[in-house]
């Protein structure tokens, strides 16, 4: 992924920062919501890179960290409203992780606004459009995320007990 891939809008006028947002969408609600937005011909920003998962509770904190390290300016997790999770409490798990992740990310220089968890039900096309548009706007105000070059420390260099390399 290229950071801020569309860093400027083509055409005249001042350059507008186009943030890259990785959005983890729950298959049962937010994906349907996004579809509903499309069917209703609502205007949607092109900044979102959607990742479909079976539940917002499937989002591992490491997925979020990796998205940021790979070039996302923001990460959005969209799940079902509390009480409506298909797996009973997956969305609640997502909420707990996000609360702790934000505290982890703060000292790393990742502002709270860059990680958001929202509830979007299956029919809520309009809400989906509002949420993603709102996030694009707040990230435009924040500007790009510039992590120090992510670690080059890889399993290729740091040996792993399971990978025996021949001498």
């Amino acid at each position, binding site marked *: 992924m290229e950071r801020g891939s569309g860093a400027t809008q083509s055409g005249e006028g001042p350059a507008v920062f186009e943030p890259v947002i990785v959005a983890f969408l729950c298959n049962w609600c937010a994906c349907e919501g996004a579809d509903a937005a499309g069917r209703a011909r609502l205007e949607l920003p092109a900044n979102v890179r959607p990742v479909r998962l079976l539940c917002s509770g499937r989002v591992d*904190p*490491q997925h979020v960290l990796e998205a940021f390290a790979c070039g996302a300016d923001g990460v959005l997790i969209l799940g079902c409203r509390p009480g409506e999770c298909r797996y009973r409490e997956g969305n609640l798990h997502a909420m707990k992780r996000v*609360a*702790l992740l934000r*505290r982890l*990310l703060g*000292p790393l220089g*990742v502002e709270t606004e860059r990680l958001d968890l929202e509830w979007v039900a299956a029919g809520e096309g309009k809400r989906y459009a509002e949420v993603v548009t709102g996030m694009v706007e707040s990230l435009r105000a924040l500007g790009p995320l510039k992590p120090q070059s992510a*670690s080059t420390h890889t399993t290729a260099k740091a040996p792993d007990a399971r*990978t025996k390399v021949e001498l």
Partner: protein
Amino acid sequence: MKSRPARRRPKLGMTWLSSCGGCEESILDLGPDLAGILGQVDLVYWPIGMDGRMEDLCKVPDGGLDAVLINGSVRTEEHVETAGLLRQKARIVVAHGSCAHLGGVYGLANLFSREAVLERSYGEDGPRLPRLLDRVKALGDVVKVDVVIPGCPPTPDRVREALDSLIRGTLARGAVLADDRALCRTCPRGETRRPDTRIRRFRRVHEATLDPDLCFLEQGIVCLGPVTRGGCEARCVRGNLPCRGCFGPVGEVKDQGGGGVGFLAALLEGASEEELEQALDGLADPTGLLYRYSLPSSLFGGRNEGEGP
């Protein structure tokens, strides 16, 4: 290279980069065994223990050392140079201790800019140091590492294991000399953890009277056992202190902080943001806690560019 007689003593080098000396101490911790080991190796380079000059090291032919143990994190340009030279001279490079393995405690300096670190430590009259890198790195970030002895500091058994296999000629590349399973699997308190425990508010060690037989997580104390490699003989837990993660993440965890967030979040009690924030208020400095030894080798590596906190 000359053909090797069966009983040739392996040539060994040891050095420290940005280090507290604890890893050197882990060599001395071998106690009486140390004398026996030193009798079976040819110690060529060990600046802290004997006369060790760079120019002497330069004279060693490339690949002339059988192994080097390097401890400490990579903080200055001089460290990069030293590590590179030793890589050239040694057939096997061993990352000795958490700093070389993961970046170590010094890696927390990556939460600040290099300038802020120098300013805070020395004010305006800084000492004359080799140039500091922009951020602290693990040894594996600058040279290829063949073997890892984890730990802050490593236990004598782990060090003995490495040196013994070097002497026997069985030190294999690609090994992490630790358990690949989580510490909880070998923790003496492992059995006391219940699957349905939830924490209303985290407590710190000094805020609690600790039960010496009960899992720390059951007591609301953060313990990184679930995401940390075992192999340390649970020394901290036996001393009634929770695991802080110095052996590094278990094989399936890529980022110790992310893994830590995952298991701690699952333990949280609370169904609303207010309740969760309240529970988390007892958790002082989660970034420093979950990345205590591994920030440089985490997915982020350090703080973003921009102003410091």
